[in-house]
């Protein structure tokens, strides 16, 4: 029973990590949105699985909420934004694809090194997935840093929140409900504000490429 549970956990987190890597590999924004959608879906499923194995009924509610918001609502909003503004392709990111993949590899290694003390004291079966969650966290940070399109940065930020949610689910079977709700509310509000700003940037600069945002110096 425990072995199956840890198998599911590792499978889920490595799936999410793969979705993250897609952002580094592909150039089209549409591909990014689908990758994010799948990642959120896997996260919701994993949360439900942890709820089932760790027999904690609250997690089902969290999984449903997560799926509804992150796998359905946000991708639709993102698609609407993507169609209206972007040229559909990430023009020239600061780091070309080959190097980004190498760097992401290095980051996952760093995650394993950093997560060593976590695994040392964890007694939950899902501990094997924690380094992967940390890895996803670093990779989403790298995405935000290296991509030029504003919408890609937003997606990177959402992935960062997914990574932290994954870490929470794996490490502590989810944070207390009231905190979970608070985090959801913040994530949603944050995304909405970012969306408003995306419209703002498009209206004033008629592009969402972050390079134009270099007027405020020194």
């Amino acid at each position, binding site marked *: 029973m425990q072995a199956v549970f840890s198998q599911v956990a590792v499978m889920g987190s490595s799936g999410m990590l793969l979705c993250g890597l897609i952002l580094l590999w592909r150039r089209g924004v549409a591909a990014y949105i689908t990758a994010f959608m799948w990642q959120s879906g896997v996260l919701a499923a994993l949360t439900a699985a942890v709820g089932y194995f760790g027999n904690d009924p609250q997690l089902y509610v969290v999984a449903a909420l997560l799926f509804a918001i992150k796998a359905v609502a946000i991708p639709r909003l993102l698609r609407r934004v993507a169609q209206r503004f972007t040229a559909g392709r990430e023009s020239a990111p600061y780091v070309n694809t080959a190097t980004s993949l190498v760097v992401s590899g290095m980051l996952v290694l760093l995650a394993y090194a950093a997560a060593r*003390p976590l695994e040392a004291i964890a007694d939950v079966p899902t501990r094997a997935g924690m380094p992967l969650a940390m890895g996803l*966290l670093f990779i989403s940070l790298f995405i935000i840093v290296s991509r030029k399109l504003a919408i890609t940065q937003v997606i990177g930020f959402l992935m*960062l929140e997914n990574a932290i949610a994954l870490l929470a689910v794996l490490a*502590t079977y989810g944070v*207390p409900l009231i905190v979970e709700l608070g985090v959801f509310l913040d994530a949603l509000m944050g995304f909405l504000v970012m969306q408003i700003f995306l419209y*703002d940037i498009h209206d004033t600069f008629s592009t969402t490429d972050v390079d134009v945002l270099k007027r*405020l110096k020194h």
Partner: protein
Amino acid sequence: MKATLLFTGLLAPWVFSAALAAALRESTRLAARLTAAAGAVSFGAAAAIWIVVLGGEALLAGPGALFRADALSALVAGCIAAVSGMAMLPWQGVEKGQADADRSRVFRIFGSLFTLSMLVAVTINNVALMWVAIEATTIASAILIPLHRSKASVEASWKYILIGSVGIALAFAGTVLAYFDFVSLLGRRHDALNWTLLMEVAPALHPDVLRLAFVFLLVGYGTKAGLAPMHTWLPDAHSEAPAPLSAMMSGVLLAVAQYAIIRWKAVVDAAGGPAFTNQLLMALGLLSIAIGALSLVRQQNYKRLLAYSSVEHSGLICLGLTFGPAGVFASLLHLLNHALAKSTSFLLAGRVLARYQSADVDRVTGLVRTMPGSGPLFAAGVLALMGLPPFGLFLSEFLLFRAGFTSGHPVATSAALLLAGIGFVGLAGHLARMLHGPAPDGVASGERGWWMLAPLAVSVIVMAALGLLLPDTVARLIGRIAETITI
């Protein structure tokens, strides 16, 4: 019962003010007065909390001790209530120039929410909900930055929201790691993330996991506290945001982030001893003082000047935390003094900007002649920031450097002294040129709206009182914090 009354007195007014501002679409005058009244009530409650906490025990209220106010939260809540109360006054609203009812309505709504979230952050016991409240402050303030639509303000708002959210997300990762450490020791309890419980359990927690968590927490909350090199959002946000918002952000939002750092430093120190956290905080503190002070030397925009001065003072406060109990006392006093001085200076900078229509230091001259009321007060604010007596910052820097030397860090303190000196020269140069010289043509001379200056004059007098007399209530409160925080 008394506690819940005080907490509602502290938080409820801002909720009403936000709601009323939203509801009363037309009569902005009434909404403005209500906000001012709300500010006053909230400040009264904060003062009451201050007195009660001084009496001895921490205030607990709400279901499962959700809200808790000990000496530290009383201090920071007091600062927030005072600064926000002053900043949200109707005439301090958005610049008088464009009297646009809709804009000032938006400002009042989200300004009240911004203050509410800050007050909740410092009075909530659960550290995760504290994170949620701080994230809420980012969102509420981000909306207010592009109030005056321009290329620069849009850019500033995007940078603010993105850097702020990424930074604060890391802080949540740290919180999760700490929670994981707690759970793996004592299992899942609903009140696990209460700060008081964490402090009790801390000696039993695993030091190396908490150290990893503290790295994430420090980088996360450091971004909000304006510590270098995560400070990059601060100058852009302040040079574009309306002056009252910059006053609140620079004055007290940094203080809330420092509050969070202090809370978590106490927990991590209880677990693995202060060596690790002191090392980190000293490095980041010195870096912030260096970058803040050196950026003052050639800065031509006086709003960005005040922003970089915030980075420097934030660095000083973090450096002070590493100098033992005397150092903590000095840095908390510095936090209080800086909140007052910075918010007053920003509000006055707003008035100067409205009159001179230019943020360039070279185009603002003869301030003493053209604005005989705001000029001297602005000078007083900047002189306070430079650390000159009779204002409080001189006293807190005196104590801070004294603690630095006596706690055995002469080299770090001397470096901080030198950098503070460079910052002083930078500020002095710009202030001297702005105050004196002939008034540029096309700038009307004479002060308008003397009664607008009343609250600012009161705050300058309070700063001088803090500098020359250091009232006993303040000294005792901060003394108690220093004992509870440091081990």
